[in-house]
């Protein structure tokens, strides 16, 4: 009788504990969803594996609002440790996407899981209802890249190809110019950026050598004249090229120098 009583006690207490922990997790999810609801310009990251983690780190550094969605305990423990907002959920479930994406002020979704079927399913669910949300999708198999474009992904990242381009540049092979950004990723504070010369800027009509661009440690790679993507000047001569309204300048340099240039231009417009 004593044994039976003891067993009943153990059993019932474990039922209570289980129910309680389930209740707690529901409360936590609810609390998290209401927290997310308060955020604006939200980025949703589906998948918190390696790629998701590195991305979240960058977004955090740059003060962007984001939330992580994953189902794996191991990944979520990491999100919890780093104090990132997260939701433990099955991303292929419509209700989850509805609660997290459609009900909030989401402007970008990044799909980083290592499962192309899951990524595609989330992509289609979102695009079917809200086409204006920009979606960046990781694709894990070369053969699937096309499918993601057909499904209207705004950007498709096949990490293995991107990393291969960086790798072959290393051995002196020429690589396409747009990989430059991937190469620069490895070089810390140097970055590639774009600067537009708006109408009314003091730069208009001036030579490069007559502006602050010439005194800072930056390199102008190319200028798209009046923003026209077909009409560009590669490696412009600072003593000859004169800026025009709407010129789009692609520059490489220290982040702080680029920031200063943008800052100066925006102050000219005040």
């Amino acid at each position, binding site marked *: 009788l004593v044994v039976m009583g003891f067993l009943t006690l153990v059993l019932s207490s474990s039922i209570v504990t289980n129910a309680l922990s389930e209740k707690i997790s529901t409360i936590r999810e609810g609390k998290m969803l209401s927290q997310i609801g308060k955020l604006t310009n939200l*980025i949703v990251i589906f998948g918190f594996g*390696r*790629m*998701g*983690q*590195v*991305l979240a780190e*960058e*977004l955090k550094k*740059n003060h962007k609002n984001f939330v992580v969605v994953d189902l794996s305990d191991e990944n979520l423990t990491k999100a919890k440790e780093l104090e990132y907002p997260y939701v433990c959920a099955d991303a292929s479930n419509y209700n989850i996407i509805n609660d997290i994406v459609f009900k909030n002020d989401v402007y*970008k979704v990044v799909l980083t899981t290592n499962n192309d079927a899951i990524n595609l399913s989330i992509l289609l669910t979102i695009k079917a209802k809200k086409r204006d949300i*920009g979606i*960046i999708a*990781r694709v894990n*198999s*070369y053969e699937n890249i096309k499918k993601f474009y057909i499904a209207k992904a705004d*950007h498709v*990242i096949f*990490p*293995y190809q*991107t*990393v*291969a*381009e*960086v*790798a*072959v*540049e*290393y*051995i*002196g*092979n*020429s*690589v*396409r*110019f*747009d*990989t*430059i*950004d*991937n*190469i620069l*990723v490895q*070089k810390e504070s*140097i970055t590639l*950026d*774009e600067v537009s010369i708006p109408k009314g800027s003091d730069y208009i009509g001036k030579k490069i050598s007559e502006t602050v661009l010439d*005194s800072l*440690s930056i*390199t102008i*790679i*190319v200028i*798209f004249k009046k923003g026209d*993507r077909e009409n560009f000047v*590669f*490696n412009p001569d600072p003593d000859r090229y004169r800026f025009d309204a709407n010129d*789009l300048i*692609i520059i*490489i*340099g220290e982040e702080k120098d680029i920031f200063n240039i943008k800052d100066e231009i925006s102050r000219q417009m005040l």
Partner: protein
Amino acid sequence: MRKIVIFGYSKTGREIAKLLLNDEYDVTVIDENPMLVALANEEGFFARQTTLKDDKVLTEVGIGDGAEVLFCVSDDDSLNLFVTFSARNLDKKIKILTKIIKKEDKKKMLLAGANRTISPYNVGAAKAFRIIQKPKLSRVLSKFSALKNKISIREVVIPEKSFLDGVSLNKVDISKDTNLIFLGLLSKKMGEKFIFFTKDISYKLNAGDILIVIGSRKDSRIFEEKLWK
């Protein structure tokens, strides 16, 4: 032809191999997995299966005997480490580029003898971040690359006794008479540290330093020929 060895016909290995499929490179693929070896063969590469229990296979594929670069890019971190270490012991000069999965493994790989490490997840995440942060730029760059007169990036090694060997950057205008942009260099004596070219830079160039140049293929070739004269 430059001899290149790829260890691991993983997704990364496969993409690297594809980019090197031309007359300039003699690519050999080695892998433990017979299925991947078969796939590499099917896709036009000389590939062989190996268990890597001894260094014999590495020697046979040219490590220490003519191979210029080794890419250690299998999906197994510990195997990559093992092959990096073995290859470095066989050849002090070979360039080794090793894939890492976790950031924490970078130091270990460099210690084992890799010249550089790469991570698909870091590069992929960085790319996603840039699309979020600078949406216009990504579009412009891909458009720019698709144009006819292709602009590309190249790493150019300064040969011994060339006109740049021993020259101070503030004493010479290296971009004179070329339509190339000199972005920076990887310094040999500083362990291939990247140095961005600024106006007042006073770095003394040495043989073995690697210049990073941007320009048309033709212009980069002309410049390289000038260096070798």
